[in-house]
């Protein structure tokens, strides 16, 4: 019978033996060495019946299918764009996934659709094993982001900024009357009159995501400035 040595949400680090036995399965952030299941990263243990995984507390954003990300156009190629998505890999946006109508690439310069330095909100279509990330604009939410400013946060703090069912980001939107889009890759786009205040609120969440009563602290910050 398999034994489990850690508790739910216990802090673990590389080399920590989480469980022993062939009937326990290694999930994300873990690996198997013989009978033992061992953590690969610093994170919190997660036990789901026989599956043990580790939720990482640090690390780069790794793109996965279906994620909404904010990217910056880095280069324009004849039929596609290279997009910086704040990850170890460059995103690739193919012409067919970006523009609805037929484009004759021999006659048009596709930089008229997206040019270097422009910011987009796109969806991750597919990630190949060797790290080719294809993006798509064929999504109701996908669009070009005009103006505004970008704030970079640690990718694993993104759920904190969004809050439960979007409660945190909705609060900031309402109080500062800014447009805010949070990319899964840790880039936040803010546009509106009160950009500075919204930025402060988001950086506060990133810095103090561990404290109790964060929501109250954020509303205080937002109220205090408005009065």
């Amino acid at each position, binding site marked *: 019978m398999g034994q489990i040595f850690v508790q739910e949400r216990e802090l673990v680090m590389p*080399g920590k033996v989480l469980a022993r036995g062939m009937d326990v399965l290694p999930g994300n952030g873990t690996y198997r060495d013989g009978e033992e299941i061992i953590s690969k*990263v610093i994170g919190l243990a997660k036990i789901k019946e026989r599956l043990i995984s580790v939720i990482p507390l640090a690390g780069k954003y790794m793109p996965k299918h279906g994620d909404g990300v904010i990217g910056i156009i880095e280069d324009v190629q004849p039929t596609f764009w290279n997009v910086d998505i704040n990850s170890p890999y460059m995103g690739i946006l193919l012409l067919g996934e970006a523009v609805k109508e037929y484009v004759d690439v021999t006659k048009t310069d596709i930089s008229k659709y997206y040019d270097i330095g422009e910011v987009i909100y796109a969806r991750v279509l597919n990630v190949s094993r060797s790290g080719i990330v294809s993006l798509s604009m064929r999504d109701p939410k996908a669009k070009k982001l005009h103006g505004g400013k970008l704030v970079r946060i640690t990718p694993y703090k993104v759920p904190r900024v969004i809050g439960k069912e979007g409660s945190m980001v909705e609060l900031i939107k309402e109080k500062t009357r800014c447009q805010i889009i949070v990319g899964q890759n840790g880039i936040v786009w803010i546009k509106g009159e009160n950009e500075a205040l919204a930025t402060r609120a988001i950086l506060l969440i990133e810095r103090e995501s561990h404290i109790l009563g964060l929501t109250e602290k954020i509303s205080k910050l937002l109220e205090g400035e408005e009065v």
Partner: protein
Amino acid sequence: MKRNRPEKLIIDGKRLDGRAPEEMREIEAKIKVLSRADGSAMFRFGNSIAIAAVYGPRPMFPKHLQDPEKTIVNFRYNMAPFSTEERVKPGTSRRSVEISKILKEALSEVIFLEEFPRTGIDVYVEMLQSDGSTRCAALNAAALALADAGVPMRDLVAACSVGKVDGEIVLDVNGKEDNYGEVDMPVAIIPREGRVVLLQMDGILSKEEFEKCLELAKKGCERVYEVQKECIKKAYAFEAIKEGEE
């Protein structure tokens, strides 16, 4: 240099800095010491201080060095000009190239290289102060910085040095003992598996002495490993508390 040699390196069973032969110097470890790096750490053995910074995994350039099957680890060990008694000439030297290479190979043993094809991980280690066992301090700091950067690893790497001074086997060699002693032997292990990933020896040991040295070094590495784990726990404990309450 030779004329500065102290008469004896071990007097009444005590070493120059007052330690017993099998006693280590004070160890200190800290992570998140640099804000711009993806992961960073400081590691100290007595007066030897190493600071490590890790960037990546990030797209690997120049492109022809990319490997479609694994990530490339780029390691730089560097001594600050002011780190020793005599000024170190800035820039790469024969010594720093060698140390960079062996430390890179030691770390490549624990990193899951195949998880990030076509990327590179940059590890920079600066020695701010050097007093013996610098490559061990550098490796310990680099392992902590990699873990802090969230790079998937089999385990941390723990390193410490052993040596022979005035005919006695000693643990954690300091600068003077390194210069005037008979043997200096840095050892690094993967603590959980007990596998040796770095072993160099400068001097001559008999087979029995070598075995005794290795045994002692492993004990020293265990000590280092405990300090490394403590340091990670301290830096990340507050995250665990909050997450646990939701």
